[in-house]
């Protein structure tokens, strides 16, 4: 009976509902006239009503996860995603659905008349349904944001580990940011790969941009140095700040097996002299 009324309303007064709904959105809350045009909004709303009507007709009004609601949900996730990318806030996106309540309930009231029990029941059902759909858009919105964040994290990971060839047979790896296990693996792999590709015998790992060094970070560094040594390349660690040197000694980290230099310049000088280059200044 409920479904019948809702379906009947959607069928007979679809145009009115659509008009009210669009007006409501343009006038009031959520929708941002500067982000989305009325035509576009009207098209989205119309398409939603079509699919909504189809889903209501199927009868499974309490379960929006059922097969018959799939078209509605897919439209909603599209809308939510595009809006999320345009910079809508989650509540603005959800308002797209919530603002359908007033036009719909007005129509229900007209249709039911003075039967209070029936009116309450109808309003409760459709309100619950729209709440579910509204929450769904928020969920998708959230999910889109999370996907964006994890993609950016991946990009940052790639960006922050460039291996630079500074001279024939010398590569440098300027590390910036905190080293965790995941990053160390990326760093280690790209460094070793570059050592093979460039045939470099000396690698300089510069940790000027690493804010803190704890035992774990030191262990990661030593692993990288050992792996490079196994492949036949020597590592020099440079850019250890005074504060970090103190911490390392206090933590009892043993770096005696690794060549360390205070600055990148010193490390480069050592690397060049090990490769047999001599730098001289031209006499003026």
């Amino acid at each position: 009976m409920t479904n019948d009324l809702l379906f009947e309303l959607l069928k007979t007064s679809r145009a009115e509902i659509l008009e009210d709904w669009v007006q409501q959105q343009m006038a009031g809350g959520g929708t941002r006239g500067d982000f989305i045009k009325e035509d576009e909004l009207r098209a989205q709303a119309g398409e939603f009503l079509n699919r909504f009507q189809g889903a209501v007709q199927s009868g499974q009004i309490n379960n929006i996860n059922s097969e018959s609601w799939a078209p509605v949900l897919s439209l909603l996730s599209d809308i939510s995603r595009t809006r999320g990318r345009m910079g809508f806030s989650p509540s603005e996106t959800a308002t797209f659905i919530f603002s359908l309540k007033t036009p719909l309930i007005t129509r229900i009231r007209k249709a039911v008349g003075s039967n209070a029990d029936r009116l309450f029941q109808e309003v409760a059902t459709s309100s619950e349904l729209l709440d579910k759909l509204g929450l769904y858009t928020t969920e998708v919105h959230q999910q889109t944001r999370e996907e964006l964040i994890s993609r950016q994290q991946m990009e940052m990971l790639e960006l922050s580990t460039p291996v630079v060839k500074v001279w024939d047979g010398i590569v440098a790896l300027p590390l910036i940011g905190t080293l965790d296990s995941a990053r160390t693996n990326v760093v280690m792999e790209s460094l070793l790969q570059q050592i093979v590709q460039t045939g470099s015998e000396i690698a300089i790992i510069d940790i000027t941009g690493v804010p803190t060094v704890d035992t774990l970070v030191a262990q990661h560094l030593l692993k990288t140095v050992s792996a490079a040594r196994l492949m036949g390349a020597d590592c020099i660690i440079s850019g250890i700040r005074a504060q970090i040197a103190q911490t390392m000694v206090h933590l009892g980290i043993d770096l005696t097996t690794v060549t360390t230099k205070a600055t990148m310049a010193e490390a480069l000088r050592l690397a060049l002299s090990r490769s047999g280059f001599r730098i001289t200044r031209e006499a003026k």
Partner: protein
Amino acid sequence: MQDKIPILQIEDLLLVSIQVDMHDRLALQLQDDLTSKISETNARGVLIDISSLEIVDSFIGRVIGNISAMARVLDAKTVVVGMQPAVAITLVELGLTLDGVHTALNVSRGMALLRRNDFTQ
């Protein structure tokens, strides 16, 4: 017994190129062959090329370390060359840093290293 890793002699150096998947018996066979070859030929250096080796386990890693230690007892220097990044990472994760084994990026660098060591002796 059918597959054996060939050991080539170049003047006073021995060259071993591992181009098949190492399994335990093959590794032990190589260890046997190489030590007897060193004492037979009085070789001064051993060059082990593992650039085609893509998978190692702790046993193979340990055998490589052992071969190097045995060669040192027989007064020959061992250089392991061409280790793949993935293999190096695996060995480090296994805790096998092969201390005391000399390493080089490729065969020619390894050869140069052995010649230089011989020269300084």
